[in-house]
């Protein structure tokens, strides 16, 4: 799988870092970062698809607006801006339980 490149870091990442995956693609991350910062560094603007099928990106960036919710380690609706990265973390953007769950009518 192709790695995601981080193109928007203001200063270099420390040498001690680890990988997380975003939509199954590995990307570098380091201790202390939020998932949102990693997404933005890797040039991800579209982050969330909400319950009403509207896509959004980071908006308030501080946990207030709930517009950057992603699926993290198989859990839906995690705020990317409020979650710190951890090694092997798996992040899925535009994931939405309305596509995955529920009673399907013919």
């Amino acid at each position, binding site marked *: 799988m192709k790695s995601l490149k981080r193109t928007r870091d203001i200063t270099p990442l420390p040498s001690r870092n680890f990988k997380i995956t975003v939509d199954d693609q590995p990307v570098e991350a380091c201790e202390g970062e939020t998932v949102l910062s990693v997404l933005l560094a890797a040039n991800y603007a579209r982050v969330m698809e909400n*319950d009403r099928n509207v896509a959004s990106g980071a908006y308030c960036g501080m946990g207030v607006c709930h517009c950057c919710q992603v699926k993290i380690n198989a*859990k*839906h609706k995690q705020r990317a801006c409020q979650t710190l990265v951890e090694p092997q973390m798996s992040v899925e953007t535009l994931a939405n*339980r309305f596509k995955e*769950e*529920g*009673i399907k009518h013919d």
Partner: protein
Amino acid sequence: MKKYDVVIAGGGAVGAACAYFLSRDTDLKIALIDLKKPGNASRASAGGLWAIGESVGLGCGVIFFKTLSKLHSEAKGEEVPVMRPHQLPDCFFEFALTSNNMYPALHREMLEKHGVDFKFERTGLKFIMYNEEDRLYAEQITQGIPHLADQVRWLDAEELKKEEPYVTDDAIGAIDFICDHQVNPYRLVDAYLEGARQNGVSLYLNTEVTSVIRNGNVVEGVKTADETFFCDTLINASGAWANELYQQATGRTMPVYPVKGQIVLSERMPKIMNGCISTSDCYIAQKDNGEILIGSSTEEKGFDTTNSLDKIQELSQGAMKCLPILKESSIKRCWAGLRPGTPDELPILGPVDGVEGYLNACGHFRTGILTSAITGQLMTELVTGKKTTLDLTPFSVERFEEAAQKAG
């Protein structure tokens, strides 16, 4: 100074329904005065139209009767017995079922005439059985209501799974009350109010009735902070606060008191429930917007409306046991409403002996949403001097005085 034919004190489901029916069926000049107090029960309600369910002690009553039976046994020093159904008297069945039958037509009427949708949904209410004890309980329920046998359906585990695929595999079956449905409670209140407004009712929202104007035994109107409202009839639809107004209007007291109910609401979920559910732990309803509503505690704590972790935990555990998929979701909101409780769980409706210009429309306890429609109709009949659709004797406030005299 203002003058109306009818002033309604209280704009919850009951007061709003009175305003709607009175304005639909008469040419009277009507005002509704309401202050949204924390804990107003209509907005805290689940919106279940569980006519049979509530009459046999399911739905909102589950925790109430559990608590009651526990207290009762503890008081007697006995062990808590196996739960037995707690059935309300026949007059309540009639009251609840008559009201319930009004909703399909009312829903169409509101939509067509007033452009408001209170989200009436035909859901049924299923009592989920986890074990033989639950089955016994369900059998006792159905034995208690032989005249409603055609409204009850038994589902085995397989049939239940087919209808409610997200219910736990541990369930052994369910009974389904097919005439029990749901609405969106705050939309129902809003629909009544909007219909009433379009029919010419003056709405004074965010306004508190501060006192009642009385001349001897005649109620002449009410005062608010800024104004005086004279009226021929004052309808007391003040929910958990009804006794205060009653005292001012009559100089007596009546036993209406707040019974707190905490509610848990999930995030919006895809459709995971086809109908409403009651278990012996809680009730669960998926509302029109996808949120799962779980209720509700029964607490007598005065007008306190705070949430407490223990009750939220109990409700959540009961819901997760029934619908394990909730473990993947989060609690979005909790709140508490104050049901207007009465000692015999029946509402207090109609005139008061020796008092003119005053009607009670209160004490609706757990079923104000369900019985708001019939209450609105009955009040309209009383105001216009018609014979009432139902006999109101069992609902008169005097029943408490008689009971007190007997006891005395």
